[in-house]
């Protein structure tokens, strides 16, 4: 094991307190009088993270805020020529360094999808790039999968360290924190004192057990062609999503859903250009000014969602599935649409598919 630190349960908040002097520390906490479940919010003195269950929503907003300012603009009268109006334009602003403490492997893995699109494409997104560079992930090895979880079916697993800088393992009396890279290593002294050999061994046993755990049935990574072959089977898609109410919650809670819209807001002479989360489940998403809509009904829209995650993305990015198996879309869906079932049945004979 590389660098380690041990934090007792009692010392956890003081460790977070120390870190929060240098950066925004995002932790999972119960919100809204427990009405809104567990959400990530910035650490405030005395507030302890809730690490026992998966958070209801995920830390996507740390690197990709639900609403963020892309530009600020202001119309001004030209001082030399009062009949002329000029525009003052400001863009990228400095962002604070941050740490996400206590997310699960599936939450963090989602950003690998973001990286492909926001950093490695033809154009680099400077807003995401800056946050990505300034944010560390201290990720908790997962020991509490539920029936909606399927991370092992999409090439991940409860001990998947991809995308993390520090690794949190629960052991007797507290947590062992392991650094996974140099960035993480630098923060260890602020988190606790070095772990003992016994603690390290106990953590290793825990890690191995989690690594051998299989969460979810079957393999959902080989459906590129099956999707293409099903594409034009309208009856299949209609049947699979007949109960969908196009609410869009599956996209809001998804670690890999990155689609956004851009809108202008203005008051008097000043305004902002904002980027906000959007959802491909909404009719307006592809609605054109001419009235034409290439995805006019929910079956075309849901088909695009399945295609994007399990066919288009791996086709484009070397087999990489754009789904981490966190199961939130299944848990949050008000009408129990289950994407696992829809993907699995792509390979079944037409006519044998039933939506439950």
């Amino acid at each position: 094991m590389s660098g380690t630190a041990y934090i007792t349960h009692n010392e956890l908040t003081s460790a977070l307190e120390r870190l929060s002097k240098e950066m925004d520390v995002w932790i999972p906490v119960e919100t809204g009088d427990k009405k809104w479940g567990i959400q990530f919010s910035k650490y405030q003195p005395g507030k302890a993270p809730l690490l026992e269950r998966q958070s209801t929503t995920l830390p996507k907003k740390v690197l990709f805020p639900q609403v963020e300012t892309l530009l600020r603009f202001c119309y001004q009268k030209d001082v030399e020529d009062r009949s002329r109006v000029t525009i003052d334009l400001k863009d990228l602003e400095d962002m604070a360094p941050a740490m996400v403490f206590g997310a699960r492997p599936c939450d963090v893995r989602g950003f690998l999808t973001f990286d492909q699109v926001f950093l490695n494409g033809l154009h680099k997104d400077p807003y995401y790039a800056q946050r990505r560079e300034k944010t560390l992930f201290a990720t908790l090895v997962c020991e509490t999968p539920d029936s909606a979880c399927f991370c092992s079916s999409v090439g991940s697993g409860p001990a998947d360290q991809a995308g993390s800088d520090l690794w949190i393992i629960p052991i007797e009396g507290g947590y062992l924190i392991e650094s996974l890279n140099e960035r993480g290593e630098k923060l260890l002294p602020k988190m606790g004192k070095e772990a003992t050999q016994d603690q390290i061994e106990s953590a290793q046993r825990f890690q191995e057990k989690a690594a051998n755990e299989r969460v979810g049935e079957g393999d959902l990574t080989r459906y590129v062609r099956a999707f293409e072959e099903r594409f034009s089977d309208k009856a299949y898609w209609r049947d699979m999503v007949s109960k969908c109410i196009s609410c869009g919650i599956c996209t809001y809670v998804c670690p890999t859903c990155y689609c956004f819209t851009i809108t202008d807001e203005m008051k008097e002479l000043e305004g902002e250009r904002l980027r906000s989360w959007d959802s491909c489940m909404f009719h307006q998403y592809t609605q054109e000014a001419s009235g034409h809509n290439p995805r006019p009904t929910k079956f075309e829209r849901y088909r695009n969602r399945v295609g994007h995650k399990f066919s288009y993305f791996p086709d484009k990015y070397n087999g990489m599935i754009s789904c981490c198996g966190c199961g939130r879309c299944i848990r949050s869906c008000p009408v129990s649409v289950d994407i696992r079932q829809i993907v699995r049945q792509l390979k079944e004979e037409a006519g044998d598919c039933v939506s439950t």
Partner: protein
Amino acid sequence: MTASAHNPYRPELATIQEIIQETPTIRTFRVVLNDEEKMRRFSFQPGQVGQLSVFGVGESTFVINSPPTRKDYLQFSVMRAGEVTQRLHQLSLGDQIGVRAPLGNSFPIEDMKGHNILFVGGGIGMAPLRTLLLYMLDNRQDYGNITVIYGARSPEDLSYGYEFDKWRTSGMDLVLTIDRESPGWKERVGFVPTILAEVAPTPFNRIAITCGPPIMIKFVLAGLKELEYEDHQIITTLERRMKCGIGICGRCNIGTKYVCVDGPVFSYEQLRHMVPEL
């Protein structure tokens, strides 16, 4: 500005230099970037698009429809349809807008060299064709004979009418058509696909480029196949609702392709290999 030197979301400020009322619903804007050095260095290929901003209202995508061989201004023809285009139509000379350009791919001008060319345009679809047409007229020796079939609903709905004589004298055939008879109209009458069948340019050594409303494109493609054009001889442009214009925001995909970066120009050969979601 910190982390990155280049922000693809930040438009260049530009000034409207000239406005031409083309038809009751289409206006052409000639704009120049306020930064003189950037305007001088601005380079693009025929077919590439730009995002025009009205700050406080939003952005929309339009083809740059002046050719790279004529760089005094950048021209965009805008049909009034949604919020941003409505607002653009209210702007006057000297007003400030934002331009993010060039974006997207372009017409394969090199591959077209030495070929005969057929343009088939309908309505606002003539805008991208005009860029390529003028580019070819400015490099006339590189291309074979050029035929243009251009149609609109009525004579008033034809854009660029003030240029037709010049086009004709620059060495090309221009066939104009309107949907229904109109007093004083001396050119053809009939839908574009019908006129295409009448003119029937042979596919020999020819590339056909078509732009227009989806329903016209559908019948023009069928018409070209009828005339025995091969899939790779047919080129068109696609439209999609766009936001970022740089391949990130997600909405303009057709399967694995993004119209904003992989398009807007596609050959019929490419279209046939894409998922059928037009």
